[in-house]
């Protein structure tokens, strides 16, 4: 009985305690880790992957998966640059165009999966390929920057508007002047909205029901197809938000950026399974998962760990979190029978 209680406690709070312990350890041993600037830096480093991860969380909830989020984000990055630099559109229309693109890709993903019965991994893998290719076509594979040479020999006249760059670069004052970057605010807002949607509304509850037993959910009158499509549309839209913020931060349509977005955000969502012993996708866990990776990398970097160890560290955290979820949680559940 006592051992069981300890196990239950470890599964519920193990990851949060680990996170807390890590913060204390780094604060003590890495100079300057425990400062508002460093905290803001960590948040900034995870904001964009965090936003993507929240979207993929929604698809995981309906027992789906979205591999196309990374390429949706880079497509949004290129699209916003193309819209402003070459088409000379305003910041607002560029943002709206990107959001619309994200939602449309989500809709197509959803339709492929629901109507054409393509398995989710394959449908979104195909979409990933398609988008990686598509985003290169308008510029013949070149990156987009203000004043670039066009194919007809003329020079692009448009620029990234200040309002657009503000989205990526503005910093709000909080205790310290110019502390909290705009992407962090958007990340936190997205996290709250997705959390409320999944945990507190009946739509979220039905999506969890669909993920757990699709047939049963359909037989109580839930429109399973519509909810699944909605999940992919949310995922596409959040991915395009991530892409917009990336473009606003970089200030150019860089063809090579955003390579790691997919893996990092999927890892955050999967690490989230282990938080509070949920053993399923959840918005709070995803946000904590993203932060966990960010804090660990920042701490290690400040303790002079070389940059090329980063992916290894992320992978190790992910594997440990997955063991937490699937071995320990499953074990504690089976014990009751």
């Amino acid at each position, binding site marked *: *009985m006592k051992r*069981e209680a300890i196990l239950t406690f470890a599964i519920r709070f193990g990851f949060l305690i680990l996170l807390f312990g890590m913060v204390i350890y780094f604060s003590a041993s890495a100079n300057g880790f425990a400062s508002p600037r460093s905290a803001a830096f960590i948040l900034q480093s995870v904001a964009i992957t965090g936003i993507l991860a929240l979207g993929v969380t929604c698809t995981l909830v309906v027992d789906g998966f979205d591999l196309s989020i990374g390429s949706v984000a880079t497509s949004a990055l290129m699209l916003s640059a193309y819209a402003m630099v070459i088409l000379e559109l305003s910041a607002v229309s560029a943002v709206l165009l990107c959001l619309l693109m994200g939602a449309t890709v989500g809709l197509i993903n959803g339709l492929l999966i629901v109507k054409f019965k393509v398995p989710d991994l394959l449908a979104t893998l195909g979409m990933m390929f398609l988008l990686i290719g598509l985003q290169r076509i308008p510029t013949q594979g070149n990156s987009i920057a203000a004043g670039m040479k066009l194919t007809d020999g003329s020079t692009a006249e448009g620029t990234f508007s200040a309002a657009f760059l503000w989205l990526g670069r503005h910093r709000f004052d909080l205790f310290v002047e110019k502390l909290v970057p705009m992407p962090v605010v958007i990340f936190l807002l997205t996290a709250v909205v997705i959390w*409320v949607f999944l945990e*507190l*509304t*009946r*739509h979220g*509850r*039905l999506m*969890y*029901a669909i*993920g*757990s*037993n699709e*047939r*049963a*959910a*359909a*037989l*109580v*009158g*839930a*429109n399973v197809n519509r909810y699944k499509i909605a999940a992919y549309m949310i995922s596409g839209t959040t991915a395009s938000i991530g892409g917009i913020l990336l473009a606003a931060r970089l200030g150019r349509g860089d063809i090579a950026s955003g390579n790691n977005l997919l893996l990092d955000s999927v890892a955050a969502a999967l690490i989230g399974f282990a938080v509070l012993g949920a053993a*399923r996708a959840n918005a709070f866990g995803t946000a904590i998962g993203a932060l966990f990776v960010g804090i660990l990398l920042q701490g290690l970097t400040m303790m002079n760990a070389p940059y090329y160890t980063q992916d290894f560290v992320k992978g190790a955290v992910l594997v440990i979190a997955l063991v937490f979820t699937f071995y320990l949680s499953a074990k504690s*559940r089976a*014990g*009751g*029978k």
Partner: protein
Amino acid sequence: MKACEIIGLEKSFGGNHVLRGVDMHLNAGEVVVLMGANGAGKSTLVKVLCGFHFNDAGAMRLDGADYRPKDAADAISHGVVTVHQSIDDGVIPDLDVATNLMLNRLTEAGAGLLVHDGALRRAAQQVADNMGLSMDVRTRVADLSVADRQMISIARAMAYEPKVLILDEPTSSLSASEADRLFTLVDRLRAQGVAILYISHRMSDIRRIADRIVCMRDGEISGHFDQSPLDYDGAVTAMLGHAMTDVNIDVQRNGQPILEIHQLVISGGSKAVSFNAKDGEVIAITGLLGSGKSVLADIIFGLQSPKSGQMRINGQVYAPSSAAQAVKAGVFMSSKDRSTNAVIPDFDIANNMTLPFLRQFSCATVLSNRRQRKAARDMIGRLDIVCQSNGDGIGTLSGGNQQKVMIGRWLLEKCRVLLLDEPFQGVDIGARRDIGAHIRETAKGRATLVFVAELDEALEIADRIIVMNEGEIAGQTENQDVDMETLIAQVSGAFIPQKQVDI
């Protein structure tokens, strides 16, 4: 000769004492039926026998030698083979019959690298012939009927040459004629000298197959019957702790018609079905697997569309094209096979129960946890569901209590028509009585249609019994002084009605 002996077996999970000293034995060439209500400890006993759990105290012997399986594979190598309740655990649906039958041949040490299909098929054919299976061994298992798949999982079990064969509710998804084939197979195995432990709720199975009956109750053996003729009523009493009482049905016949089924053609080539279901009336629709009763349930719930014909509710034309539309029109259905069609395994009791009516439990789409819990608490009290609280995971409940939750789900809101498809599947007699009584108590204000294959269940709950056969109504009768012989003849299709009567 005692093939298997169990002495003083005990097992607890945490504080929950599930087996409290079980003593029993199985003889070679004998079928022992193990009866017990849900939660009596049958499944745990089986799991200890087949190496899934370890016993805390007591001993098991096989042919006099100590038997303590390390895991399921070890149990099989000792000759203790189990066919579990869920059929698809026993077969690989995407492979053909031959490969399924010979699977153990492929995994055994020293098996060749290449599969010799011809030899495999010949060997499989031999096994199939031995078991009296007639299907082509090249058929994909997924294309077979449920009964054939069940036969194959038993045939596969036989490939291990078991001394002890455990069958866990093997007929729970079979129709009567399919069950008959299974019994023939069990007879054959008994003649070959296998000791068989047969777990079942169905009285008809037990009457047909049992050499000996052992009853369990609260983790102990509560009754043991081996005198021929077997005392079935005594066995039920020992299992439940009280005598089986006859249910007295006070037939309701004066309600206003709610659901009118008019000239509905269920499958091509069969005659149209017409009947009315009245306010306050409980109609049992019975028939064999494939008689069209499940299709009729699906049509009324909007999952399939009829070939032709019309339905009306309160005089309004009703033609649903999805479950959502049916629910909107006040037609609720508790589906059969709760684990695939009804249970949300990740949710607790309250969320499972309130799932269809989340809209009513939310304000501007935000759910009210408090109201969900309150409704669930009330229903738990009304249906007498055994649990710690409404926050228990649904998987922690026994089958009967899970079923109560699934039915309680549809009793939360008022409806016009309530359809219950096999509501007593895998449910012990005690829980069945609770559910039946509650359905009859609340029957006012709606028409209730219960789709059951077992006549006992129909007689227990219904005001009127409609028998279906091959997509047509083979007969109907009020549930009063029912002539069982006619009823059974109608079910089996032997009875030809002179004139179709519409009530």
